């Protein structure tokens, strides 16, 4: 089985590169009949591409969903903020130790309404990934998030969080500065809020790192996002002493949006464009925006104390007891 999105998508990526090249060639061609020939070829290849997409997406297994959720071109938190929010002002300070770029946050508006947004941020190239620490937040990131939650409460702004992290940072320094406490305290702060909180899982919902900013009134999940108690490779390493059995673990852990909805742990699945979000980021963003606004409108009917109780009850009911 493919280990990465790139490997799995190789036939599709190559075909798309070919189509792009042919399109360029067509624009450069001056002879009308030749040009027509090239365009006819493009059409054929596009048809074949659509068939491949249909075929690949008609039988996605849990592991393919993991690869899709991790795909580099998938829209990230800042892409969504750019597409659906305006006047975003990023705020960096945790006022404790340092700046953590694995989590971005600040005030913004959605549909003209002031909110606080908090989300994990991945990077697309080596420099960005290093800068973002692969979206693995350190204690500083969660403490910065706590500050944002406090601002939201003080100024009566709803909170929107985007979930997209492989896990919280597992390094020695993060341990020494209390990564566990930071995650727990972040959840605790969310449970204090009397303003509405909506979370959207847009990529990898990676264990404690994810739930640390996902204690929300409404949790939405994109169709091809995953949400898991442990990364599949980690689970395979512990249970079967073989990290290469990630695909089996992904199936056993039931990491897909469909499973999360069936278990009642997310409230809604946000459908993605054909071939997943990156193939039409604007359409994906529009669906995400509609989902967020729908959730906020529903939560607007509740009083501040009801909002807090609603969040408590939402998580209180979770668990499967025979």
């Amino acid at each position: 089985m493919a280990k990465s999105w790139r490997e799995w998508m190789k036939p599709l990526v190559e075909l798309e590169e070919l189509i792009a090249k042919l399109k360029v060639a067509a624009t450069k061609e001056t002879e009308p009949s030749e040009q027509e020939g090239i365009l006819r070829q493009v059409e054929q290849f596009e048809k074949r591409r659509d068939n491949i997409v249909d075929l690949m997406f008609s039988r996605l297994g849990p592991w393919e969903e993991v690869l899709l959720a991790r795909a580099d071109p998938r829209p990230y938190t800042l892409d969504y903020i750019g597409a659906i929010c305006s006047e975003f002002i990023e705020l960096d300070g945790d006022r404790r130790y340092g700046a953590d770029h694995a989590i971005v946050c600040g005030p913004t508006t959605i549909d003209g309404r002031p909110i606080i947004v908090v989300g994990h941020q991945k990077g697309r190239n080596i420099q960005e990934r290093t800068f973002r620490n692969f979206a693995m937040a350190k204690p500083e990131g969660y403490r910065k998030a706590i500050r944002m939650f406090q601002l939201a409460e003080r100024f009566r702004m709803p909170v929107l969080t985007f979930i997209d992290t492989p896990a919280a940072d597992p390094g020695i320094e993060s341990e020494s500065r209390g990564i566990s406490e930071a995650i727990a305290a972040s959840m605790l702060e969310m449970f204090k809020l009397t303003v509405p909180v909506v979370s959207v899982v847009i990529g990898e919902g990676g264990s404690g790192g994810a739930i640390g900013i996902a204690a929300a009134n409404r949790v939405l999940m994109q169709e091809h996002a995953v949400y898991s108690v442990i990364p599949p490779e980690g689970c395979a390493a512990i249970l079967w002493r073989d990290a290469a059995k990630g695909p089996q673990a992904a199936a056993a852990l039931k990491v897909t949006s469909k499973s999360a909805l069936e278990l009642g742990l997310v409230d809604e699945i946000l459908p993605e464009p054909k071939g997943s979000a990156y193939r039409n980021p604007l359409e994906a963003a529009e669906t995400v925006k509609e989902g967020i606004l729908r959730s906020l409108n529903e939560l607007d009917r509740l009083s501040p104390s009801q909002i807090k109780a609603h969040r408590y009850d939402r998580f209180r009911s979770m668990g499967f007891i025979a």
Partner: protein
Amino acid sequence: MRPDHTAASRFVQCLNCKKTLFVADFQSNLKVCPFCGHHHRLTSSERIAWTFDEGSFQETDTGLQSGDPLQFPDYKPKHEAAQAKTGTDDSVICGHAKLFDNPVSVAVSDFNFMGGSMGSVAGEKITRTLERGCDERCPVVIFCASGGARMQEGLLSLMQMAKTTAAVERCQAEGIPFISVFTDPTMAGVLASYASVADVILAEPKSLVGFAGSRVSKQAQVSKAPDDFQTAEWVLRCGMLDKIVERRDMRTTLGNLVNLFGSHLRVNEVKVG
């Protein structure tokens, strides 16, 4: 656990210094090695018997059975084997107890049960223990011993982190003291939820306390880990817990804390009564 006196079971070996000990001495020393001071892991019944007022513990919430919601490979047989081994329904036992006559709501996790992992049942019992503290206006004491969230229940286990933390928030809002005790080991999903947001955090000496398995965190960093990385002593130096307490002093320390932080609850009781 009452020692029998057949020759084979008269001795045990300390897991740390490997010295041979009389079972009777070992038990009467609360399973702490008299030579090296190593605190051996306890079953939940030993923990309860050696911590709370004699005969005061009344178990509640029994009979909660974990389902197998994901049909996870080998979960059922592993879970049944753990039940047979420990004689308990799941990794956590909870109920009412008294500490020097003060009522407390308590939960104790047992590492012998699937690594003390927190699935739906453990999360539910921890939550009920915290809620019981609120409902009955008494302090909450929880002994942690866990490798983290239970993988076999997938995302349901992750949600127990949020559920238990929400219950801690309720305790804080209602002025109910919550003391958590890290015993060997207290890791991952348990450490990163209710356990770390207690009002007071105690730990037994040398307990393993950490977020990531030590191999993961050492791999993740170029810098060398200190020799005592992820021990209670190291975590104390980092400022992430309040006090390391030897097992023989645990009952008294907890009793004093409950007495001090719970005094306002007793004042109210008198006024109301």
